[in-house]
């Protein structure tokens, strides 16, 4: 770890040297001969001093004037000053304290007193940049030190920002209680600081997120993974702490916070939580990189500017290859960033509560499209609209959809709703009766992404879903994991017994299709047939299939 910095201001070289000697094992020392020199060193702003040791009587600019200047520069209010003077008259000390000095010690310097007082004052003033729980930096402190550090470096490209989170931390917390959770956080912080990364600085960003700056050369993933998964014991219970790692290589003198965001983004690209719980940020991620603040700040104008487009992915009948329905998918055609991936902006919108407006937008678009095509005598199929779990916290949103259903001349089965497993908790809490009410009116519901998370049989039993969609992550594993086809077959059978139809999502190959057909899967969605289509192409797709008699 990089040492904390102390500025010693004294006109005597002997005095400065003695203090340096007493402190240099633990701190990084800079010296100034007088107040004026000290001020210019501070103002150059390439150090982060945690303390100033200040002599009072000096030529050029004395300690009192230095303190006055420091008070004028409000930026340095967090910088404590200890007086080191042979002059301990009450009058002088009173004046120094009134100008903001926090402590004093006299000459001759006693090393024990010096080190204790220095340590005490630095600790006392550390709350603005330290994480109290783990003792490492907090987000602010980390960004401050890293920014300065990389400013001073000629070549930053040898460094990486490494972000960590603790796998299943919420579960650990509820299993072991807050005290246990805190213990795990402290242990994780120690693990990171003592890891092979040899971090220059490390911090807890928030909750179970940690970050460190390290030399890229120290990142040996194999060894990092060997160190990972250490067993901790708390109150006689053993548990294994596994860290997930996201890495961003530094590429210029960009802001530290930007690299932290990149490394965090890399975390979300981790594919195998057990064998390869790390990911490195790369340019393809950069192209899709959208930060949450941008999403929410631009959302409203983007919606007004028609940047959000509804795409339609046809769903085909497995047995006949006819078009059975379609799923409405939102795309963001950003004027500068191009197509923004939904998995990047949707979580941000969910977090800030904007997602309901987007879901509503899609519902309105789909309904008006179907209405206009029907009026023109064009072929249509039922289209499903996704509802986010957030929607179920928004009573008005659901009511709005209900009202539209009543007033809308669209057939009741023209628009269906897809709900993911993750919505279950929100529905159960809030709007259980709404779903049932909609179902009574004849609205069809699809269980989306089944098998991607905590697949809930309870949810399947409590709500009479009409259709279940097997998540594409399962379909993709059918060829690589021998047990997966059996699971798929079982899901299909189970659904049929419960009176549900089944859609397989993400079907891409002939082999997948032929297996699914044999297994009795009802519908197929995926690139094997077609990718999601913009409105005009979807219209043409339907017209072509209509001409061939291929609309179910």
């Amino acid at each position, binding site marked *: 770890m990089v040492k904390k910095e102390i500025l010693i201001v004294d006109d*005597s070289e002997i005095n400065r040297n003695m203090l340096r*000697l007493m402190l240099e094992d633990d701190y990084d020392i800079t010296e100034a001969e007088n107040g004026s020199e000290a001020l210019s060193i501070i103002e150059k702003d390439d150090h982060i001093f945690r303390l100033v040791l200040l002599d009072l009587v*000096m030529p050029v600019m004395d300690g009192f004037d230095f303190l006055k200047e420091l008070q004028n520069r409000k930026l340095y209010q967090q910088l404590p000053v200890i007086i080191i003077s*042979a*002059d301990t*008259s009450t009058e002088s000390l009173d004046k120094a304290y009134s100008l903001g000095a926090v402590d004093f010690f006299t000459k*001759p310097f006693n090393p024990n007193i010096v080190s204790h007082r220095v340590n005490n004052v630095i600790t006392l003033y550390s709350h603005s940049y330290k994480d109290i729980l783990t003792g490492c930096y907090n987000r602010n402190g980390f960004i401050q030190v890293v920014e300065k550090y990389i400013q001073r470096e000629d070549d930053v490209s040898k460094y990486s920002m490494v972000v960590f989170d603790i796998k299943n931390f919420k579960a650990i917390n509820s299993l072991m209680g807050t005290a246990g959770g805190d213990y795990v956080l402290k242990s994780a912080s120690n693990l990171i600081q003592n890891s092979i990364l040899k971090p220059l600085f490390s911090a807890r960003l928030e909750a179970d997120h940690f970050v460190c700056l390290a030399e890229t050369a120290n990142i040996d993933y194999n060894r990092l993974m060997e160190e990972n998964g250490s067993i901790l014991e708390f109150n006689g219970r053993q548990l294994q702490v596994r860290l997930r790692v996201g890495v961003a290589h530094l590429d210029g003198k960009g802001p530290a916070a930007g690299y932290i965001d990149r490394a965090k983004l890399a975390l979300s690209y981790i594919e195998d939580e057990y064998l390869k719980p790390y990911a490195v940020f790369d340019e393809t991620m950069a192209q899709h990189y959208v930060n949450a603040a941008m999403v929410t700040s631009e959302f409203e104008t983007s919606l007004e500017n028609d940047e959000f487009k509804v795409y339609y992915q046809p769903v085909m009948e497995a047995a006949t290859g006819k078009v059975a329905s379609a799923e409405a998918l939102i795309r963001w055609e950003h004027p500068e960033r191009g197509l923004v991936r939904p998995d990047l902006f949707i979580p941000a919108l969910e977090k800030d509560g904007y997602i309901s407006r987007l879901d509503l937008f899609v519902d309105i678009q789909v309904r008006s499209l179907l209405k206009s095509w029907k009026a023109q005598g064009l072929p249509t199929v039922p289209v499903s609209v996704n509802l986010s779990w957030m929607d179920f916290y928004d009573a008005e949103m659901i009511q709005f959809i209900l009202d539209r259903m009543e007033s809308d001349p669209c057939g009741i089965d023209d628009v269906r709703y897809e709900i993911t497993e993750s919505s279950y908790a929100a529905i159960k809490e809030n709007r259980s009766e709404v779903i049932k009410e909609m179902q009574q009116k004849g609205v069809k519901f699809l269980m989306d992404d089944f098998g991607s998370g905590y697949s809930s049989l309870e949810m399947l039993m409590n709500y009479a879903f009409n259709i279940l969609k097997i998540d594409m992550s399962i379909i993709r594993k059918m060829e690589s994991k021998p047990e997966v086809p059996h699971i798929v077959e079982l899901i299909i059978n189970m659904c049929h017994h419960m009176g549900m139809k089944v859609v397989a999502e993400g079907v891409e190959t002939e082999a997948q299709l032929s297996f699914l057909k044999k297994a009795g899967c009802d519908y197929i969605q995926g690139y094997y047939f077609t990718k999601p289509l913009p409105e005009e192409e979807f219209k043409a797709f339907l017209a072509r299939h209509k001409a061939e008699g291929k609309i179910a």
Partner: protein
Amino acid sequence: MTIQEFYEKIGGSFEDVLGRLKNESLIEKFALMYMNDTSFKTLMDAACAQNISDTFRAAHSLKGVAANLGFFVLNKAAADLTEQLRPQTAQADANLLDTVKAAHQQVIAALQEYQSEK
């Protein structure tokens, strides 16, 4: 002459410095640094120029350095002069200044002797 003998000779306390610096060779290093210290010269220049505030400042610095080095006699002399100058109303008292000068010269002479015997 040992470094202990040097401290006896100038009326200083080797034990006091040892208690703080813990290490004999460091004590020697710092004691010898005094030969290049400018506090005394600054003091004399300021006193000659009859600049009261500079004289006070230099006396004060010398007092601090002497305290850190455990040069008690010099420290006491500089402290007395500092207190006399503190109100900054009168020029340096000649007797007090002489006492400082004598203490300083004794330290320098002893240091030179110590160095030549090494």
